[in-house]
């Protein structure tokens, strides 16, 4: 495989995983170990290819210095259909993420939720409020006095929880815990042998 093709392939992979954040020419050069000028030329060629190839449904958009992959405008119709199609799961995924964050970190502001998720979360918060699963529980100190969100009684009912403490512990450190025990155990093991 020649190096230009490899770079193109790398760039497509990188833009694919970087999502809405996109990547700058500089970042792409660093990540692919290519020269910036070379990356620039290749990106221009890729932009051209994506645009003109009619069997491609995505293209590269240059926005505020970053490059990102987006769907082609002409396919908006079928994407709109996807939005309206109830089989779409991403909506509930977004709602469940927000709900988990509110449940475990309450009281919490919208901005804090968005920091954790890394994406705007106005819509899912709105949905969850409308469903009565989260509610305003107060206002944050300081300027702006942002709304603080918390879960409702209905939330407990919906998930069959006695109270908020009945929530299972967050999985975050669990695998870590397991490792710790094993390490400790094995350290002891070794100690005895060597001791």
């Amino acid at each position, binding site marked *: 495989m020649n190096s230009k093709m490899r770079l193109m392939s790398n760039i497509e992979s990188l833009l694919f995983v970087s999502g809405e954040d996109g990547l700058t020419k500089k970042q792409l050069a660093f990540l692919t170990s290519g020269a910036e000028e070379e990356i620039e030329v290749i990106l221009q060629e890729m932009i051209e290819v994506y645009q003109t190839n009619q069997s491609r449904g995505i293209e590269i958009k240059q926005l505020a210095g970053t490059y990102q992959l987006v769907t082609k405008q002409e396919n908006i119709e079928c994407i709109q259909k996807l939005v309206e199609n109830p089989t779409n799961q991403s909506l509930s995924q977004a709602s469940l993420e927000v709900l988990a964050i509110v449940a*475990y970190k309450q009281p919490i502001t919208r901005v804090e939720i968005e920091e954790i998720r890394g994406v705007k979360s106005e819509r899912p918060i709105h949905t969850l409020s409308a469903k009565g699963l989260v509610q305003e529980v107060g206002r944050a100190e300081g300027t702006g006095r942002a709304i603080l969100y918390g879960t409702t009684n209905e939330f407990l009912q919906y998930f069959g929880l006695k109270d908020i403490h009945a929530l299972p512990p967050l999985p975050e450190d669990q695998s870590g815990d397991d490792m710790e025990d094993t390490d400790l155990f094995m350290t002891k093991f070794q100690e005895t042998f060597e001791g």
Partner: protein
Amino acid sequence: MSYEVKTEAFEGPLDLLLHLINRLEIDIYDIKMAEITEQYMEHVHAMRVLELNEASEYLVMAATLLSIKSKMLLPIHQDDDIDDDFDMDLQDPRDELVLRLIEYKKYKEAAENLHEMEETRSLYYSRPPTDLSEYQSSKQLELLELDANVYDMLGAFQKMLRRKQLNAPLHTRVSKQEISIKAQMKNVIEVLKKGGGKLSFYELFPMRDKNTIVTTFLSLLELMKRQIIQVEQKSNFEDLFVHLRKEDIESEFEDEIDE
């Protein structure tokens, strides 16, 4: 003083037994009970089991091994018709253990396969679905049925964490053991005597300190090996009971146990 070591860990008594069978190159269908029991005891002795749950499981297996070993030492009744004995498929005391080991081994191997698949899968990435809620009317969103349980919520959270790739390295340091096994053996006997010679396994572990738990456990093993105590369990995962078999053991005790 502290150590930082990483070696092979065992997933319970069956895993340890498989390891020993493998290392000793023993035929799983013809396990040398004396050899395996001795090795098992040695290993478990050396291991410092942390959780009470696990400790009891290793202990039960120790008891099982000792029991099989002693059954195999019993002479085969030769007074009956010899031909009969020869033809009859005599129940081998090891049978049940062998079946359990084989069954467990299958899943242990399947777990290895899963681990390989996990590694292969980690070589490619998908992307999170685009958040399309922007294009959705609020009315549509409100109508959307949320059909989820707590674990769906946790699963969603997990997906998000994976996206964010959060992690913190772990370093665990351990301090050296403080109570000797010998001292703890004496303690255990004292406690058993006070308890009328029979106590539940958990009553022997009133303290929370991990080191003490470990030492107590090891002292139990030693006492078992010397047949000073006996451990009983009615069925899997039920409470263990520890019996004192010999009341007056002081003299023998003093000479024998040496660190």
